[in-house]
């Protein structure tokens, strides 16, 4: 058999049939569903009298609209409440498992998939959410789809797809202390641009990627879409197997052993080729901070805000000027001079237990700067519970951070957690688009460690030299 990449192996094992032009009917092993992108899909099923083909391959959870404050009070916004009620009704009508708002297992859809053992190597996983790329950390082909396709998968367990190209992003070497997966992916997007991965599935390779924990790999794959790639993946290894073993929805006993054997084949053959390869040295990656209005507008903490006058490309210069105006930044100012008034630690990018452990230990014995509002939103009810058992909530609260219930929260501000116009936020989330965290709000994407340091100092600092 010809040498294949990891992506090619997963793709080929899911082809149901192909049209003459290469358009493929691709089998979908698993689908995750949330309240925002599913109501019209369920409505479509009802209108056409169709039923889900495999309700037992689907898992639903409300996350985008849920309050992160006391949930016994219900949801103040009637539209949000209705959307969540609609999800509950649809799951009941169609026999789909739902982790409701008051279930301890509720959380951000891309946190709970891996946490429950729903996410497995070698699978195809979709969700009506672009950050579905997160699940690629397990060596799955996972990507975001629109609502019509959510309906399509519910009805047929398949999707019509054209095979994407395959890009290798190779990062070798050792990251410096307190540089994280978040800094790696921001640096990659800074290098390839927000459309650099359009049309590709990325496989992340190299010693620096192998060295990442499963949590770190999830952070990495999560933001593949911010580089334009619908999916990103890391080949499974012993860390992957150890992470999955014993989780509630993971295969058990003999089935697990059988699965592990199959997963060992899930790696790119040594003589396989990619359509494109990008390489980076881990040593060259400084802690990253975004300065603009898309995730490609990012630089190292030891750098300065770019000067549009030095940019020769007309489109780029205009986009930079517009971004700096929106962000209220002055060309050439050091990144460390940027003052912030809000800190958000959370989102499907950085709200796992490992993120919270690191952040809490950096916050230990320190205080959030005067005038700064800082909040921590765990990725799931189980992450929250674990953090509380370890006493992390106490460390955060003693330092002046708010400790919230699980959900998407201020990553996209669909619930009550919103930036006011002009507010400037150090955020561990994934998008710094205009108005993303609230109309007129200004977002700087950073790692959890950088967010804690910014909360304490009131401006960005280089975590490598912060004491």
């Amino acid at each position, binding site marked *: 058999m010809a040498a294949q990449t990891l992506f090619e192996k997963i793709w080929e094992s899911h082809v149901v049939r192909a049209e003459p032009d290469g358009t493929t009917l691709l089998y979908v092993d698993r689908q995750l569903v949330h309240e925002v992108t599913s109501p019209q899909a369920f409505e479509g099923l009802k209108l056409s009298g169709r039923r889900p083909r495999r*309700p037992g391959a689907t898992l639903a959870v409300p996350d985008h609209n849920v309050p992160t404050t006391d949930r016994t009070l219900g949801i103040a916004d009637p539209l949000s409440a209705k959307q969540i009620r609609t999800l509950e009704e649809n799951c009941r009508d169609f026999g789909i498992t739902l982790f409701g708002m008051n279930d301890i297992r509720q959380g951000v859809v891309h946190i709970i998939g891996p946490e429950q053992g729903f996410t497995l190597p070698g699978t195809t996983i979709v969700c009506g959410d672009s950050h579905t790329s997160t699940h690629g950390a397990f060596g799955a082909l996972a990507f975001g789809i629109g609502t*019509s396709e959510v309906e399509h998968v519910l009805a047929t367990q398949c999707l*019509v797809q054209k095979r994407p190209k395959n890009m290798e992003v190779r990062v070798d070497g050792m990251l410096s202390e307190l540089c994280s997966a978040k800094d790696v992916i921001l640096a990659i997007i800074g290098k390839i641009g927000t*459309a650099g991965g359009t049309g590709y599935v990325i496989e992340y390779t190299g010693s620096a990627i192998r060295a990442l924990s499963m949590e770190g790999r999830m952070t990495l794959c999560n933001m593949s879409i911010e580089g334009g790639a619908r999916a990103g993946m890391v080949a499974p290894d012993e860390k992957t197997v150890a992470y999955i073993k014993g989780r509630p*929805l993971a295969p058990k006993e003999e*089935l697990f052993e059988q699965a592990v054997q199959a997963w060992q084949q899930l790696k790119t053959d040594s003589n396989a080729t990619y359509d494109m390869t990008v390489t980076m040295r881990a040593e060259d990656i400084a802690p990253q901070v975004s300065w603009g209005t898309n995730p490609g507008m990012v630089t190292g903490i030891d750098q300065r805000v770019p000067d549009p006058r030095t940019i020769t490309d007309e489109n780029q210069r205009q986009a930079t000027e517009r971004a700096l105006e929106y962000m209220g930044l002055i060309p050439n100012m050091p990144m460390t001079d940027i003052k912030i008034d809000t800190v958000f630690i959370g989102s499907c990018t950085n709200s796992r237990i490992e993120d919270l452990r690191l952040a809490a230990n950096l916050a230990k014995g320190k205080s959030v700067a005067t005038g700064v509002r800082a909040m921590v939103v765990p990725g799931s009810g189980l992450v929250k519970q674990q953090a509380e058992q370890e006493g992390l909530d106490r460390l955060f609260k003693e330092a002046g951070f708010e400790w919230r219930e699980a959900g998407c929260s201020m990553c996209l501000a669909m619930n009550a957690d919103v930036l006011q116009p002009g507010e400037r936020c150090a955020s561990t989330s994934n998008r710094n688009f205009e*108005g993303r965290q609230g109309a007129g709000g200004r977002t700087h994407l950073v790692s959890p460690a950088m967010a804690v340091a910014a909360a304490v100092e009131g401006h960005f600092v280089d975590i490598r030299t912060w004491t």
Partner: protein
Amino acid sequence: MQAFTIMTGLVAPLDRVNVDTDQIIPKQFLKTIKRTGLREGLFYDWRKQKDGSQDPAFFLNQPRFQGATILLTRDNFGCGSSREHAPWALLDQGFRCVIASSFADIFYNNCFQNGMLPVVLKADEVLAMMKGVLATPGYQLTVDLGSQTVTAPDGTRSHFEIDPFRKDCLYRGLDAIGLTLQHEAAIAAYETRRKAEAPWLFTDLRPNPGRA
């Protein structure tokens, strides 16, 4: 789904790169459970000035672009979130076609699900059309899916690529799910074969599988 064959329509210009779906329709409009009525949210923040009033300079607020059915824009249109509310909002405003020098993958795909045609042209072709729109009131283009061409008022014709399968589905307005269901036997055969290879993928994940 509505078929798309050929259309001639007024063109509206959005002369920006990297327009993300958060700009096309901000989050507060995603709380709906319907596909319709999303026009109100289209470019909601960009339509307004800092004081909250409508910005007369924004293209959607200009009388000359009222009734436009073709949106002309630049690189990487529709990047970011997968929200299908973005094409729904454009459709609700009357746009059936978006022409750009490139699109983000998910948005591009979502257009086809809704009888909308995303057309990729070369950057210099888009630039020439952009100049034409800005200089010429009433500037129209003819988009012909059959011949895969866009024709400008001066007769200049630009060719675009599209997958034959997608083209056929859009041209005939086919129901994508219905089409897949015609391959029920192939899907069932795949499941049988795959279940033998990888049985752990076919465990029913519901707590009480029998009940639904």
